[in-house]
């Protein structure tokens, strides 16, 4: 670098290396000045206007009600624990939403390619309706519909086990018994064995060219071990909700509250319409020549789908789908509008007794962490498919 700095006959103000460093330093000073100016101004104003700020509140008793919780909650718990409960509620809504939206999205996307004209058009109408209406309007609408359902006593019942009423959905749910942990261990071992066997079979298939069905075999091992252990150990019982609770409530099973049901339906309908379009575009993106080439080397329809069309369309489908998952997670913050106690909703309730700015920073950092997790998954996937291509 020194050699470059003192090139004969070039004045230093036209030396590229000097110029680059100068621009770097100037821009660094600018960036730092803007950030420092912003934070300096804000912190000075916070002090001047007696606006509360700080994180001492996290250990105090929250003393606010949170409607539902995955891990149990009492108003005497701390703010920190309350925020954790709220974050888990967000995770619960987004994980369930992601699973259901994926299933529905694939279904609608494939229906969009159906040769049946009517099915095809219904899928199109579904997509165009649900992706062109703000999610907030959809959520408010579904919440209204749930609230206008009859009470539990007069609600809809299917097989005496599934209840739909204005307090949400009640459905049978497994309750772990004594044998639960041995069973869980056996299942994990089964899955591990299945993965090893499947990789081995996959390797043999690519080496020898003989179909070895790695995925099917792996699935069979995993499911088989799980089911056999289930039958032997009896690790859980299925609890069916029954109308014996007090105040006309249902007892037992899992209860999805009214606002959670509305949130889930809204998120799933909205996101699945986007995923459906991604799936359709992904399947259509595989050029016809690929299918024709596969058929001309003698692959059957099923083989073509498995080894040619499907892997190629997955490359197109998965990256935008991951970004839809991220959108769904961020969109679950709209729960605040219908009273589901997610992170944003609980945090905004807490602002009555705790510093608002500190709270919202915690909320933003939590969402940022979730987003980074999704980007990490996306980047790992992109790297994986890039390696396969070489």
């Amino acid at each position, binding site marked *: 670098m020194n050699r470059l700095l003192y090139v004969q006959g070039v004045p230093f103000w036209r030396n590229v290396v000097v110029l*680059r460093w100068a*621009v*770097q330093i100037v*821009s*660094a000073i600018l*960036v730092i000045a803007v950030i420092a100016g*912003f934070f300096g*101004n*804000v912190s000075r*104003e*916070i002090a*001047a*206007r007696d*606006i509360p700020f700080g994180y001492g509140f996290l250990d105090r008793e929250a003393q606010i009600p949170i409607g539902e919780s995955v891990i149990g909650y009492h108003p005497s718990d701390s703010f920190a624990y309350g925020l954790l409960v709220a974050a888990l509620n967000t995770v619960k809504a987004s994980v369930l939403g992601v699973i259901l939206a994926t299933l529905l999205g694939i279904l609608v996307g494939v229906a969009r390619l159906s*040769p*049946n*004209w*009517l*099915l095809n058009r*219904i899928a199109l109408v579904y997509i*165009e*309706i649900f*992706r*062109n*209406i*703000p*999610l*907030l*309007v*959809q959520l*408010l*609408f579904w919440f*209204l*519909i749930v609230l206008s359902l009859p009470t539990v006593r007069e609600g809809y019942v299917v097989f005496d086990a599934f209840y739909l009423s204005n307090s949400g959905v009640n459905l049978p749910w497994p309750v772990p018994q004594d044998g639960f942990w041995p069973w869980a261990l056996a299942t994990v071992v089964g899955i591990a064995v299945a993965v090893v066997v499947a990789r081995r079979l996959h390797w043999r298939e690519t080496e020898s060219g003989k179909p070895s069905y790695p995925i099917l075999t792996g699935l069979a091992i995993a499911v088989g071990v799980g089911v056999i252990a289930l039958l032997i150990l009896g690790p859980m019982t299925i609890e069916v909700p029954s109308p014996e609770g007090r105040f006309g409530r249902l007892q037992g099973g899992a209860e999805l509250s009214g606002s959670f049901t509305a949130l889930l339906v809204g998120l799933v309908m909205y996101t699945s319409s986007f995923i459906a379009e991604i799936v359709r575009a992904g399947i259509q993106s595989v050029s016809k020549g690929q299918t024709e080439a596969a058929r001309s080397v003698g692959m059957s329809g099923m083989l073509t789908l498995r080894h040619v069309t499907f892997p190629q369309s997955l490359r197109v489908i998965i990256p935008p789908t991951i970004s839809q998952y991220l959108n769904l997670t*961020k*969109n679950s*913050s*709209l729960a*605040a*509008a219908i009273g589901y106690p997610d992170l*944003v909703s609980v945090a*905004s309730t807490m602002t009555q007794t705790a510093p*608002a*700015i500190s709270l*919202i*920073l915690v*909320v*933003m950092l939590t*969402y*940022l962490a979730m*987003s*980074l997790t999704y*980007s990490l998954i996306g980047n790992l996937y992109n790297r994986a498919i890039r390696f396969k291509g070489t």
Partner: protein
Amino acid sequence: MSAVTAPAMDRPPPPPPMTVGTLGWLRQNLFSSWVNSLVTVVLAVVVGWAVIGLISWVIVTADWLVITSRVQLYLVGLYPQVDAWRPQVAVLLISALLGVSWRSWGGTARGFAVGLSAVAVIVGVIPHGLQPLNRILVLAIPVAVGVGYFLAAGFFAGRPRRIVGAAFLAVFVGLLIIRGIEGVPGLEPVNTNDVGGLLLNLLLALFGIAASMPIGIALALGRQSNLPVVKWACVAFIEIIRGVPLITLLFMSRHILPLTFPENIKIDTLYITGITIMLFSSAYMAENVRGGMAAVAPGQTEAARALGLRGWQTTLLITLPQGLRNIIPAIVGQFISLFKDTSLVFIIGMLDLVEMGRVTIQSNLEFVDNGREVYLFIAVVFWIFCFSMSYVSRRIERALGVGKR
């Protein structure tokens, strides 16, 4: 005479009756196999039942008084009744622009222009509680479309720069009329907190997308810079904004933005919201611009360098213009999602179309059971805007031949 009719033997035999015409179409597309036939019948029954149910609800059961008695609230919020003509003049300017597009572009623009005029005539003619001045301004919409159409044949003919200039001027004048000018009689400035309803959604989305263009381009260029400080500052800004929900940003800015101004300046909620939406949108715009520039063929850059253009010249004159052409559909898509996202401003207490609907249901006892009507109305309004924009976007995409060149 006899030479005209060819001998019957030379004609190809007619196609089998079940492969052509309506019957053939039905057979191929709905009843090609027994599974397909079953699917068709089941779906037809379900869809028919749903459509009939919906139509009968809309016509018979629903009580639309909750909409018709307060149309103005939904459209412009608390904007003063006596000044309602001002947004209408802005609509007239847009209609004239639509007329220009009809003449110079045809196709889709014609459909929109004719549709808008038809709706305007219907609304203007049916008797309901519309002030005479407002009624005249509604009926003036087809006239404005016509004026635009004829201007396009004369003043604008073959001069795209004039059209672009006129479009910018029209938007600027429209915004000025809506906001008002200090000291001009009849155009007194309107309290920004009174702007609401659909007008608020449209203004925020338009401002957000327009203001985010320059910032987004700057961020995208900064992200590609080989100066680490600039690059990482841009990356951090883009990823932080894209990583959190808009609702938390709005919530944050309500508490933080006023602190960045001196205490004696009281900043309006409308401007706080506008700035937040601008920053939010610019992070997404930056990613669009980056994608568009990445899609420009590398040969373009190489050719530019071979011609002796410097780095910044290559970017500004070669890569950026072609990249921006690539992202026009993406910008429309971003506008659509931004327009939908403007419904989140309820979190800082602004009365946009959705919040206005919710307030109407909750604060009027007589409308407490009319929630479905309200949300259906709001959904239809948003849907019409979003769907027509995405339709136009697809047309532009095809016309530009993105990915074809």
